[in-house]
C-alpha cells in the first residue's frame, strides 16, 4: 500500500509538474501570473479529443494539442502581454483572467457542457510490482514527464535560448541591453510553455478519460501555488514542489482522509511555508528579487 500510494502520488505530481512547468517558464520571462495557461491546458485536451476521433492515434492527439496551444501562447504574448507589460503586474493578470474566462465559455459553446471521452489505448503494458499495479497510462505520464524535464534541463543549460531565458528572467532590461533579442526569446518560451500545458491536458484527458469545459479551473489557481512553493520562476523548484504536493496530497488522503478540501490544505501549507521562507521552498538566485 505504501508503494501504491507512492506510484499514485508520483503520477499526480508528474501531471502537476507538466502543468506547472510551462507556467513557471512563462512567469520567469515575463513575471506575469498567467491564468490563461490553464486555458491552454483545456485547449490541448479538446484538440486532443478531436484529433483522436479523426485518427485514433494518441501521439498525434498529443502533438496536435501541443501545436495548437503553442500557437495560442505565441499570439497571447505578442499581442496581449508584452504590449501591456509596463502597466505593472496586476494588469496582465486581469488580461489573462479575461482570456481564461472567454476560452472556457468558448469551449462550452463549441463542445457543449457535457463530459467528452478520450479513451485512447496506450501501447504500454500494465506493470505489476510487489502487488502494485502501474497502468500503461500512468507509465506514459511518468515517461512524458521525465522526457519533458530532461528536455527543459538541457534547453536551459545548454542552448542559447536557455541562456537567454535565464538572463531575461534575472533582469529583462539588462538582458536587452546586453543584446539579447528578448522579444524572440519570449516568443519561444511561450510556444514551449503553452505546448507543455496542452500536453498535460491531453495526458490528463487520457488518464481520466474525461474532458470538460471547466477542467482548467483547478489548475488555474493551484499551479500558481505550486510555482510559488517552488520559488517563482525556478523550473527545478517547480518540479520538486509539484512532486511534493502530489505525494503529500496522496498520503494525507490515504492516512488521514479528505480532512479539509484538498486545495485548502495545499494553500494553508503554502501560507505557513511562505511565512517561514518568504522566498519559497526551493528558491534559487533567479527568483529571489
Amino acid at each position, binding site marked *: *500500500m505504501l508503494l*501504491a*500510494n507512492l506510484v*499514485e502520488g508520483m503520477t*499526480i505530481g508528474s501531471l502537476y509538474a507538466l502543468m506547472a512547468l510551462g507556467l513557471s517558464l512563462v512567469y520567469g520571462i515575463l513575471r506575469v501570473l498567467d491564468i490563461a495557461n490553464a486555458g491552454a491546458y483545456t485547449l490541448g485536451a479538446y484538440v486532443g479529443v478531436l484529433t483522436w476521433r479523426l485518427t485514433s492515434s494518441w501521439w498525434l492527439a498529443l502533438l496536435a494539442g501541443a501545436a495548437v496551444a503553442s500557437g495560442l501562447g505565441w499570439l497571447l504574448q505578442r499581442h496581449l502581454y508584452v504590449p501591456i507589460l509596463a502597466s505593472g503586474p496586476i494588469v496582465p493578470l486581469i488580461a489573462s483572467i479575461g482570456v481564461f474566462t472567454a476560452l472556457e*465559455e468558448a469551449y*462550452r459553446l463549441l463542445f*457543449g*457542457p*457535457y*463530459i467528452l*471521452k478520450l479513451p485512447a489505448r496506450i501501447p504500454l503494458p500494465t506493470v505489476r510490482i510487489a502487488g502494485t*499495479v502501474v*497502468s500503461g497510462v500512468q507509465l506514459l505520464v511518468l515517461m512524458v514527464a521525465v522526457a519533458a524535464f530532461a528536455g527543459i534541463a538541457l534547453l536551459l543549460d545548454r542552448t542559447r535560448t536557455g541562456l537567454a531565458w535565464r538572463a531575461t528572467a534575472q533582469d529583462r532590461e539588462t538582458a536587452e541591453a546586453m543584446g539579447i533579442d528578448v522579444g524572440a526569446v519570449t516568443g519561444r518560451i511561450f510556444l514551449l510553455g503553452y505546448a507543455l500545458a496542452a500536453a498535460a491536458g491531453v495526458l490528463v484527458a487520457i488518464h*481520466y*478519460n*474525461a474532458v*470538460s*469545459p*471547466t*477542467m482548467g*479551473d*483547478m489548475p488555474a489557481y493551484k499551479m500558481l501555488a505550486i510555482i510559488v512553493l517552488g520559488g517563482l520562476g525556478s523550473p527545478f523548484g517547480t518540479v520538486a514542489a509539484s512532486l511534493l504536493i502530489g505525494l503529500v*496530497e*496522496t*498520503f494525507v*488522503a*490515504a*492516512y488521514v*482522509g*479528505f480532512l479539509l*478540501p*484538498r*486545495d485548502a490544505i495545499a494553500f494553508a501549507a503554502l501560507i505557513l511555508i511562505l511565512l517561514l521562507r518568504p522566498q519559497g521552498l526551493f528558491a534559487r538566485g533567479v527568483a529571489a528579487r
Partner: protein
Amino acid sequence: MSRLNRETRRALAAAAVLLIATFAAACGGGGKPASNAQGNNAGSQGSQAPIKIGFFAPESGFAAADGQSAQDAAKLAVDEINRSGGIQGRPVRLVDYDDGSDAKQAVAIANKLINLDHVTAVVSGSYSDQTLAAAPIFQRNHVPMIAAYAVNPGIPNTGSYIFQQSFTGTVEGRAGAVLAVSQLGGKKIAVVAIDNDFGHSLVEGFTQEAKQLGASIVATDYNQFGEKEFTPIIQRDLAKGADLFYLVEYGPEGSQFIREWNALGVKKPLVGTEGVDSTTEFLQVVGKQADGMVITTNLDRDSQNPEVQRFVKDFTARFGHPPDMVAASTYDAFFVLAHAMRSTGLSPEEIQKGLASIRDFDAITGKILRYTSNREVVKPVQLQVVKNGEFHHYGIVDDPALIQP
C-alpha cells in the same frame, strides 16, 4: 484644496448619473418576453393570454451540464403541456433565465420574474445556493415556487409558497442505508461524499439509519468538486475492513471513482445516489465499468407507467441522449404545477392550496403521495442497478416510516 474637492464631487456626481443610467438600461434592456401588461390576472378564464411560468437554471458556469438538462426538460414539459391544450384553455409560456451558478444573479432573476415578467409560478432548475437565495423573494411576493431537485432543507422552510420536489437528503440517505444494510448485507461501510449540502444531508440520513440497522461506518470522507483521486481512500478503507461503499457524488467525480474502483479490481457492493443518475455525465463516461452498482434515485427506467416510457423516448429523440434525474425532476415540477393550476385555479393562493393538497399524483419520478405540512415531498425512493451500462429496475423503498421526511 477646493479644486480637488470640486473634482471629487464631480466624479461622484458622474458616477451617480452613470449608476442610474445603467439601471435604466438594465431595466429596459433585458427580458425575453416584452409584453407583460396583462400580469397574472387569474380571473380571466376565457382569455387566451399565456400563463407565464418562470424558470432559472445554471446554464453557464461549473454546473452547466445540469443546467442544460434542466433547461431541456423545461422546454419539453412546456411544449407538451401546450400540445395537450394548455391550462384552462390558456397556453403556457416559459420565461427562462441563466443564473450562472451565482446566488446574486438568482436574486435579480427572482425580482425580474415577479416584477417585469409577472409570472404566475416558478420552477427552480438550479442548485441549492441559488434556490435558497431566490426562495425568500418568491415567498415575500406570494409567488409559488417548486425546487425541482435542490435538496437543502432550508428551501421549503422559507415559507408556505415554497415546495421541494425531490426527496430530502435525509430520506434518500435512509433509503440508501436500507439498501446497503438490509438488502446488500453491508456490515462495515465506507462513506465517500461530495462536500456540499447534498453530500452532507444524505450522509447524515444514511449514517443514522445504517447504525440503527446494526452496521458500522468505518470511515466518512468528504471531497470537493472536481476530485479525481479516490485510490488512496479506497485502499485505506479496504484495509480498514470495509465490506460496502456508499458513494454520494455527482457524475464527474463519481465516474472517476468508478474508474479507480475498477483499476483496483474491487469486488465489494457499491451503493450510489441520484447524484450519478446521469447518462451524459456518468454512464457514458464509465460504460460498463459501473455494472452492479445500485443507486437510490427517483426515475425508474423500467417503470410500467407508459408516461415514463413516452418521456424517455421523447426526450432522447429531441436532445440526443436519455434524460437524467435532473431532467426528470424538472419535467415533473412543471406537471405538478400544471396539475395544481388545473385543479384549484391560477391565483397564488389557489396554486399554493393545489400543491399542498396533492394526493397520489403519478409523476415521472414515481407517485407523489403528498407534501408534508413543511412542503417536503413524500414519495417512494427508486432503486436502480447498472446493467450493461444502463440503469434498470432493482427495487423500491416505500416504507411510510422511512420516506416521511
